[in-house]
């Protein structure tokens, strides 16, 4: 193994309901690094917001953390406010003879592997961009705009991408309750007329967490309350009959915009919920290190499903390209569609800028296939390239904005 390997900090976990899924995604990325060129540095964000690093984090069996386990880790924080020329680093606290000291842990690039709020939504990307820390994947603006499912749909709808009608319902101020009259008005505005069943989902989360079907007004209220426990707002849409979902990954990391294989997640139920997506086929717990069956998530999906007509495949690919270009995305993103299996109609559903497993399984099935190691390498190289291009321009002369004479 070469000595001058770049150190890649992969940040995962996070203050999000998708915390656990993010651990899997982060560890998978670390496991798929090209070890000849890169060295992984796990950075775990605990549910309380604390950042940790240490070898022990690499094992799934180490989670969840407790006070004892934390003794095997180092608490770290991002060194903010450094001069750009000093490069990026984490600071690890350590006790010293003359009071506490901090060790520097320099790194070359950070890979956000946090799903959902406080990570996939542009906040982390903004933090890193502001401090000149090179990072992989979507930039702050693309991450934050696509996190709002309603906004994304409105933009794409205006560009001719088919989207379902939807009503956005905000969480009531604390103490206040849902106003049925006001809500009915919002629903009518967004949906045209109120017709059950409806599909209710959080405005800004993925992994199907908190999503449910409402068959009547009582069901709708219950579904909204469930969403408001985890998000600021809900998106209500008509429930698609004969629902089939199709997902495709897109990336420009290798230089040109490429699309992956298309997948249809398998599900006997009306829609894919969290436990089906991540826990099916097991004893109810996420599968751990020593169970070599972890790769079997692939059994929950059909790759390049036969029922898709060439027209439908082309439509999915064209819409996916449009989404990628419109929001100027980067990294490996997954673009999800809904379809009515009987009518063949297709609608854009949402974008995941940090999809589970970085959608590696879709790339492995692409034509030509891209292995997970090739994917991580291309995402790292793209991140370094993008961040280098974003280096802040500080020459006041160029901007003809000189006020203080520099002699």
């Amino acid at each position, binding site marked *: 193994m070469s000595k001058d390997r770049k150190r890649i900090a992969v940040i995962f976990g996070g203050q999000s309901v998708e915390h656990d899924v993010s651990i899997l995604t982060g560890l998978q990325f670390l496991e798929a690094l090209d*070890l000849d060129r890169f060295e992984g540095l796990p950075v775990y964000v605990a549910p309380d917001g604390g950042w940790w690093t240490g070898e022990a984090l690499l094992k799934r069996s180490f989670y969840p953390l407790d006070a004892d386990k934390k003794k095997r880790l180092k608490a770290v924080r991002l060194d903010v406010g450094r001069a750009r020329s000093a490069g990026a680093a984490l600071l690890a606290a350590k006790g010293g003879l003359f009071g506490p000291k901090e060790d520097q842990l320099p790194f070359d690039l950070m890979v956000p592997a946090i799903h959902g709020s406080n990570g996939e939504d542009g906040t982390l990307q903004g933090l890193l961009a502001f401090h000149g820390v090179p990072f992989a994947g979507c930039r702050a603006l693309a991450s934050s705009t696509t996190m709002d499912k309603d906004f994304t749909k409105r933009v794409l709808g205006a560009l001719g991408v088919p989207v379902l009608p939807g009503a956005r319902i905000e969480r009531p101020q604390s103490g206040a309750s849902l106003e049925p009259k006001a809500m009915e008005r919002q629903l009518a505005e967004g949906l045209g007329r109120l017709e059950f069943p409806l599909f209710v989902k959080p405005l800004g989360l993925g992994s199907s967490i908190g999503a449910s079907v409402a068959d009547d007004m009582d069901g709708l209220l219950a579904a909204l309350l469930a969403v408001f426990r985890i998000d600021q707002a809900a998106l209500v849409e008509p429930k698609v009959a004969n629902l089939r979902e199709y997902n495709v990954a897109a990336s420009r990391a290798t230089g040109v915009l490429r699309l992956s294989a298309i997948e249809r997640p398998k599900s006997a139920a009306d829609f894919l919920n969290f436990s089906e997506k991540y826990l099916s086929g097991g004893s109810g717990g996420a599968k751990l290190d*020593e169970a*070599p069956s972890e790769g079997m998530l692939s059994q929950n999906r059909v790759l390049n499903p036969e029922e898709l007509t060439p027209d439908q495949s082309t439509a999915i690919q064209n819409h996916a390209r449009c989404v990628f270009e419109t929001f100027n995305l980067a990294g490996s993103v997954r673009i999800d569609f809904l379809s009515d299996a009987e009518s063949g109609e297709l609608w854009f559903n949402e974008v995941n800028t940090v999809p589970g497993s970085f959608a590696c399984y879709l790339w492995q099935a692409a034509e030509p296939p891209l292995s997970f190691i090739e994917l991580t390498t291309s995402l790292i190289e793209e991140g370094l390239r993008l961040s280098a291009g974003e280096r802040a321009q500080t020459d006041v002369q160029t901007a003809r904005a000189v006020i203080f004479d520099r002699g």
Partner: protein
Amino acid sequence: MTAGDPGMSPPKTPFHKLTLGPEATEAPQIIWLHGWGQTHASLLPLAELMEKRATNILFDLPGFGKTERLERGAASPEYAAAVAAELTALPAGRRLIVGHSFGCRVALRLAAGWPELVGGLVLIAPAGLPRRRSVLWRGRAVGLKLSGRMARFADRLLGSRLHDRFAVRFGSADYRNAGPLRESFVKIVNEDLSEVARQISQPVAILVGEADTETPPEISRRYAQLIENAGLVVLPGFGHLDILSRGRHQLEARLSRFLEEHGFGH
């Protein structure tokens, strides 16, 4: 060991196997041989990643999963003969054998005894060379072996069940779980494949996790010296079993490279 009669008959029913990837005969074949106490499923996450590059045949070795066991006391020569019989029935072509742990013992015997059936070997966490142990460890082992024999002797004399209790207390997990395969297990763990390794002329890749305590990298290093045409990669951060799950992308990269470098491509 030479090809041909291993002294025991192969199992009456064919191996249980799973085939992944193209059926086309021009695609290279990868034969997957799992470790002791495992089934083909332990290699599935990795084999799935090779689906586009090769026809993958994953066997349940005799006595594991759904394949009938061989005659009592069968050791790795008999396992290799049984696998050879299976391979003869497959379409000919460029063939790579991938073994994990005990599967490597079988793979090595196969490559030495039936070179015409094996184009190359990838040994993941190979077993088969005696481990270098401390004097203290060896002393303890001799003591335990002696006590075991005494327990068995006492059982025979007195009709007691001392040996069973002894096995529960001191036997390895594999030994305790071996059931009707216990005789095979004892023979197999005591085999030394140094001579077999010296006979291998096919290209060989040896991959092992740095944190492997079952078949530590030290064994792989010695194999790399014994085998004429072998390359060794020690992967940091992986153990004996999780190299197959967490480490599968690393293994995939090395396997693909091996296929390309040794002309196993389409």
